[in-house]
């Protein structure tokens, strides 16, 4: 008999490991901040936060709902859109913290992330992207 909880447990395990790694990274940066200097520590925190957003955005389209959705096409489109916008927003956030002048980095990074959240939320809340009749088109395999 197969264990139906195994994929769910593996998913939670992976997420906990990732969360642990990010927390550990933050602690390491904090502990090294006197040696690194305030500016570099801020930049590294920003890069780490951007990496976290990319990690989450990357996983969104891969995480399928347990039950078949009522509108599979719209559901898939929204998931892909959310994943791409969050990943690109996270990438912009990360690059801004890496490359922008330190006095402007926070503002530029926030603009990238804010824009991606705004676009994602607008698309997710859009009623017009939901087709009236959904359901996977079904043809017999045989």
């Amino acid at each position: 008999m197969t264990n139906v909880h195994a994929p769910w447990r593996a998913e939670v395990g992976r997420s906990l490991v990732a969360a642990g790694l990010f927390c550990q990274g933050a602690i390491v940066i904090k502990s090294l901040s006197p040696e690194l200097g305030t500016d570099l520590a801020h930049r590294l925190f920003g890069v780490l936060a951007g990496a976290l957003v990319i990690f989450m955005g990357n996983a969104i389209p891969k995480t399928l709902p347990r039950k078949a959705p009522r509108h599979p096409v719209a559901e898939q489109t929204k998931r892909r859109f959310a994943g791409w916008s969050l990943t690109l927003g996270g990438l912009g956030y990360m690059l801004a913290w890496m490359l922008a002048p330190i006095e402007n980095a926070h503002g530029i990074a926030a603009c990238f992330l804010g824009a991606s959240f705004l676009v994602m939320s607008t698309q997710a809340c859009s009623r017009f992207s939901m087709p009236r009749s959904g359901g996977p088109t079904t043809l017999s395999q045989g």
Partner: protein
Amino acid sequence: MTKVFKALADPTRRRVLELLQRAPMSAGELADHFDVSKPTMSAHFTVLVNADLIAADKSGRTITYRLKMSVLEEALLGFARTFGLQISNNDKAMTPARARARR
């Protein structure tokens, strides 16, 4: 990750993923887009499912395939589509020619 690269190396499988980007489709609907036999298509679907790029939902006699690609995998698909991906000679991935030979 090797499985993903192997899955993306074949143009038929890339085309299947492109079709599934539009909407989830049944095995029969997907097979209609290709001039290959059903066992060959079935082999391609197996490779894609094993690479965790698509998910199969079975209801009755119908298998519906859904896209299950992360953003990075989709970016890789776009890269493979644009520049092509070469598979090495010792690649064990199921190719249509290999599937035909097996039959």
